[in-house]
Each structure stands twice: as structure tokens, then as C-alpha cells.
């Protein structure tokens, strides 16, 4: 680690707070450009998807348990399980699968 964690935290926090506070304080009119609006609309889903896979299968002790958690998570979220339930289901799948595999 050649960089200082506190400076990382400072930079990330400054950017986040600027994003949250500046539009509220500076922009009085509405963003009309539909391409920018559409981009902002798609960004959260794409970012979260990119960060979830394949990271989820590398996070666990075996790739199989992480893969099973991914399938279980997609399946339970598809059928409307809450944020908390999906998280618990994923954790349980990994725990049980690794009990059986390792």
C-alpha cells in the first residue's frame, strides 16, 4: 500500500458530497437533455451489475459456492424477495455449499 487510506477516504467523500449537494444548491432549472437523463437512468443498474459479476464468484472460498450464491440471488430477487432476504439467501447458500464441498 503506497497510498494513504485517509486520503482515499477524503477524495471519495469529497466527490460523493459534491455530487449530492452541488445540484441541489446550484441547479435551479431541470436537466432537459434526454440523452443525459437516460444515461443517468441506466447507470446504477450497469454499475451494480459490472461490480457484482464476476466478483461474487471470486469473493468466496470456492468459485462453485459463489456461483451458486449468484444463481440463488438472481432467482430470489426475480421472484420479489426483499433486499435483506436476498442477502441472507446468498450467504446461506455459500455457507451450506462450502460445508458440503470443503
Amino acid at each position: 500500500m503506497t497510498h494513504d487510506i485517509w486520503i482515499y477516504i477524503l477524495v471519495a467523500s469529497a466527490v460523493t458530497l459534491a455530487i449530492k449537494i452541488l445540484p441541489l444548491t446550484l441547479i435551479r432549472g431541470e436537466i432537459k437533455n434526454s440523452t443525459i437523463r437516460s444515461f443517468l437512468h441506466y447507470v446504477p443498474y450497469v454499475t451494480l451489475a459490472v461490480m457484482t459479476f464476476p466478483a461474487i464468484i471470486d469473493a468466496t472460498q470456492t468459485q462453485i459456492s459463489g456461483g451458486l450464491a449468484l444463481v440463488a440471488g438472481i432467482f430470489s430477487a426475480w421472484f420479489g424477495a426483499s433486499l435483506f432476504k436476498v442477502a441472507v439467501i446468498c450467504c446461506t447458500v455459500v455457507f451450506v455449499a462450502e460445508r458440503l464441498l470443503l
Partner: protein
Amino acid sequence: MTTENRQALADGFRDGTPIGLGYFVVGFSLGIVAKYVGLSPLQGFVISLLNNASAGEYAALTVIKSDAPYFEIALLTFIANARYILMSTVLSQKFSPDTPFYHRIFVGFDVTDEIFGITIARGGRYLNPFYNYGAMLTALPGWSIGTACGIVAWNFFSEAAVSALSVALYGMFLAVIIPPARKDKIIGGAVVASFFLSWLAENFFPEISAGNRTIALTILIAGAAAILFPVKEDDNDS
């Protein structure tokens, strides 16, 4: 404080309590990742208190893990949190001209998906900032103390438990992206493309850091979707 503001504060606290409890769990999951990356409980508390954004914080942690330049954490935090620009802009339209300016700063401090959601759901032409403050009373400590607890708790967990808990955050991400992906074909397609391209990039360009991969793919995929499938004005996101 006027009766109306006190009522708004109480309403916000009531509506914010389930959010705060959920945030404790999100924060805890982030804490597990933060510990893995090397943050102390205090550092976890501070980053969560000031950011209050799961995707943004997780993205920041991936940059810290890869020991990348400071510029990269700024850029990735910007991308991961870009949606708050839209929410903050929407909220700017809901301020009464009579509300003192400093309230805009404090409300902006804790714009999150959920608090934005309940603020909009409360309705009315103008928002009452005290409603947001009520929600923040549970949301901010829930998130930041949760993160510190996750970092501390790591030491008491077995390897098997840490492995299991390490997918909690991904489970939450799936819970956010899968239901809209099911309802909206374009979001669904974007999610599938994201999974596939992210996998391709990791396997064929392993020298690109996780942070840069997220930035590049987000701009590419969300940009392509925005150009090819612009969102109609009446069903814009919330």
C-alpha cells in the same frame, strides 16, 4: 421549532427507522469488505458517515484494494454515484423559495436511494427538510456504525462465516438490479451485457484494475443504452 417542522421530523424518523435498520445490515456487509481491504473501524465509520452510498463505497474500496492513483477513486466514485446528480436535481425543484439556503446543503448531505424515495413518496409541492432530518437520524448512524461493527466483527468470525458474509453485498446489489431487469427489457439487456462484458474484461484484460473496468464498462454500456434507447420523459427514474 414550529409544530409543522416537529411533526415532519417525527414522520421522517418513523419512515426512516426501517431504512436505518436496513442500512445497518448494508453497512455491516460493507464493513466485511472494508476489513478485507485494510480499513480500521474508525476509517470505516468515517467513509460510511460521509458517503452513505453502497455502490459508491464498494467501488471506492475496490480502488483502495488495488492501491490505484487517487484520481481513480475520484473518477469511480463519481461514476458509481452519478445517479445522485439526478436525484439531487429533482430535489432542488421541490424546495420552497422561502426555505433558507443552508437546508439545501443539509438535505443534500444525505441523498440516498431510499431517503429520496420516501421524500418523493411523501408528496406535496414542497418538501420539508425536517422530514429528511428525521430519516437521517436513523440512516446515518445505522450505516456508519454498521460499517464499524462489520470491521470489528470480522475478528470473531471463522473463515467459513466470512466467506458466506462476503456475498451479502452482492446479494443486495442483485436485489436492486434484478426486479427492474425483469420488468424492463432494456435494463435486463443492459444487466446481461454488463455481466458478460465484465467477465470478458476480467479474463482477457486482467491488467485493468477493477475500478477502471467498472468506469469503462459503465460509460460504454449505459452510454450505448442511453443513445439507442432514450428514456421517455414520463417514466423517468426515481
